[in-house]
């Protein structure tokens, strides 16, 4: 029998029993929907990480203090100082340096009051991080030297304290000290942990001398002249710091140098792992869907034993019967796959629209979903179809 006749027969037998067909396909539908949605979330997360890398520029290095091996966990990490930053700035291939110090303090404006991350930075911080003030001005080198009591607020902090009013020129209290707001950063949106939206920036000198009374840095951000020099510069910084910190040849580094790209690549890898994990959970439901198909196909073979006998009596070969039931199983699974793709697309859209996560359905996902559907139809359909095709025609005709 020709394949399109077989397909027509299969389609008709499925159309005759719509509810059962729909229920049979349900497992596949759920599985494919889940896989598509998970892939869309994973791909979206990957894209937003890549977007961040692009926004940061790929030629930034971050030098952080590393507590010595075996040190008590809560021990303060006090290895990087401003002089280190100044020395790094002199190195060949370094275009800019931004020493940074971190702390947390209470920020108050009239009745509004919140605990915020306070970053001590120099005038070079904003250009180096590709950040800009939405209103007001940035810091000048004098602010740093003179320990000026001025602050730049992240977008979220400004909104929390001032709502929609302008914050420029207003007096706020940071850890009990009066500061004047000179600038507000433009909103960056969600860029992961340590978002500049949630920070308050103060001059580094002020951070050290007035607020926290300590002269150790939390980090030094280094801008490399070109991406190609990144590795060389990293080595030079390493040598320089070991020298400056008088580390013996066998002592481990008391700092670590990472590129921004590297950090984001790590985040990307984590996202990928999550996607794979969730994806395999979703794939298990595909398996369950396949078992559902097999179950119903077995019932169908039993119910239609007499039909099989009649078909054999009029000349159906075993492979005609095999093909008929196999095609039926595959049609159900393709149907489930297509509905699942549609619902997955809908879910991805809804997650992006209402959940605020970026979702992208990768093109390969459509092919993958369809291919897997067909494969599941074949794998789980072949057993029942074989059973149908090996029936004894005399016995089958005797069946009521």
């Amino acid at each position, binding site marked *: *029998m020709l394949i399109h006749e077989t397909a027509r027969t299969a389609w008709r*037998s499925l159309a*005759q029993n719509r509810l059962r067909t729909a229920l049979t396909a349900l497992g596949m539908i759920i599985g494919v929907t889940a896989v598509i949605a998970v892939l869309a979330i994973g791909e979206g997360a990957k894209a937003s990480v890549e977007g961040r890398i692009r926004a940061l520029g790929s030629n930034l290095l971050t030098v952080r203090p590393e507590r010595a091996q075996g040190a008590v966990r809560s021990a303060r990490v006090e290895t990087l100082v401003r002089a280190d930053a100044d020395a790094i700035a002199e190195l060949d291939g370094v275009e800019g340096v931004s020493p940074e110090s971190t702390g947390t303090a209470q920020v108050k404006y009239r009745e509004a009051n919140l605990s915020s991350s306070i970053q001590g930075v120099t005038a070079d911080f904003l250009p180096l991080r590709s950040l800009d003030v939405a209103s007001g001005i940035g810091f000048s080198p004098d602010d740093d030297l003179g320990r000026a009591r001025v602050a730049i607020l992240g977008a979220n902090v400004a909104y929390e304290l001032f709502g929609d009013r302008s914050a420029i020129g207003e007096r706020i209290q940071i850890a009990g000290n009066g500061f004047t707001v000179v600038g507000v950063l433009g909103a960056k949106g969600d860029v992961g942990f340590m978002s500049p939206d949630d920070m308050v920036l103060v001059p580094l000198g002020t951070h050290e001398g007035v607020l926290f009374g300590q002269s150790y840095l939390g980090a030094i951000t280094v801008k490399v002249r070109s991406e190609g020099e990144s590795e060389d510069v990293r080595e030079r910084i390493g040598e320089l710091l070991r020298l400056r910190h008088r580390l013996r040849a066998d002592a481990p580094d008391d700092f670590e140098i990472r590129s921004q790209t590297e950090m984001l690549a790590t985040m990307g890898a984590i996202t990928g792992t999550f996607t794979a994990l969730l994806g395999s959970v979703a794939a298990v439901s595909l398996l369950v869907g396949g078992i559902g198909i097999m179950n119903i196909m077995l019932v169908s073979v039993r119910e239609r034993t007499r039909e099989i006998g009649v078909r*054999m009596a*009029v*000349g159906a*070969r075993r492979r005609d019967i095999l093909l008929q039931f196999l095609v039926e199983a595959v049609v159900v699974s393709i149907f489930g796959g297509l509905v699942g793709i549609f619902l997955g697309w809908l879910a991805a859209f809804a997650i992006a629209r209402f959940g605020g996560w970026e979702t992208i359905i990768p093109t390969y996902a459509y092919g993958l979903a369809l291919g897997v559907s067909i494969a599941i139809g074949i794998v789980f359909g072949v057993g029942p179809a074989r059973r149908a095709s090996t029936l004894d025609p005399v016995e089958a005709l005797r069946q009521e």
Partner: protein
Amino acid sequence: MSLAHEPPTRAAQTPVVIEELRKIYHADRAELAVRAVDGISFRIERGESVAIVGPSGCGKSTLLHVLGCLDRPTSGRYFLEGRDVARLDEDERAAARNRHIGFVFQSFNLLPRMDAVENVELPLLYAGQRDTRARALRALERVGLADRAHHRPNELSGGQKQRVAIARALVTEPSIVLGDEPTGALDSRTGREVMELLGRLHAEGTTIVLVTHDLSVARSQDRVIRMRDGKIVGDGPAAAEIEAFVQENAGEIA
């Protein structure tokens, strides 16, 4: 249709030749062995109409299954259009059923989800032929049901269903039409109509073999084969054999 190893003049050949045919169930265990068909021989010439009669359990259904290539004999030879069926593999037997055999069952065995013409078309589809629809419609015309072509079996009366089944049996122009109690599920009037149809087809040259215990059905055939306990106990013109059958079963029937 013509295959290389088939003689070119099919009409000249005896379509069914059976020699010492046996079908024994559980042949491997002597104490359980059931000799359903036990060494029978006969020939059926082209254009004959034959009824096989006998009490239940005499082996006539088993014989019908073997004749229809649904089942293989345990021993003996069965030549269908000159080819030994026992030596055919499964696909070849399916092809033989498709090409040489037309089944008419007691319970019609139409596929319920298909309309009349699609049921009739089915053997042609398995034969991989073209113009299947037109040929199926012609076959329905022969049984006088062209106007019911698009009715489903549940929209047809019993007699109409059996006529659709006969059209399905005829559509491939088989060597023999095999009927298994073709009037068994019909009332006597519709039964007679179906027999008249089969009689007409026979007059047009169709070879017909019926298994029945309805004597009026047997009487309308040229020849009757009587079976008992898996053996042939009589084979001859219908009138004489039926007379003998009635004599033999007089005690049981009364």
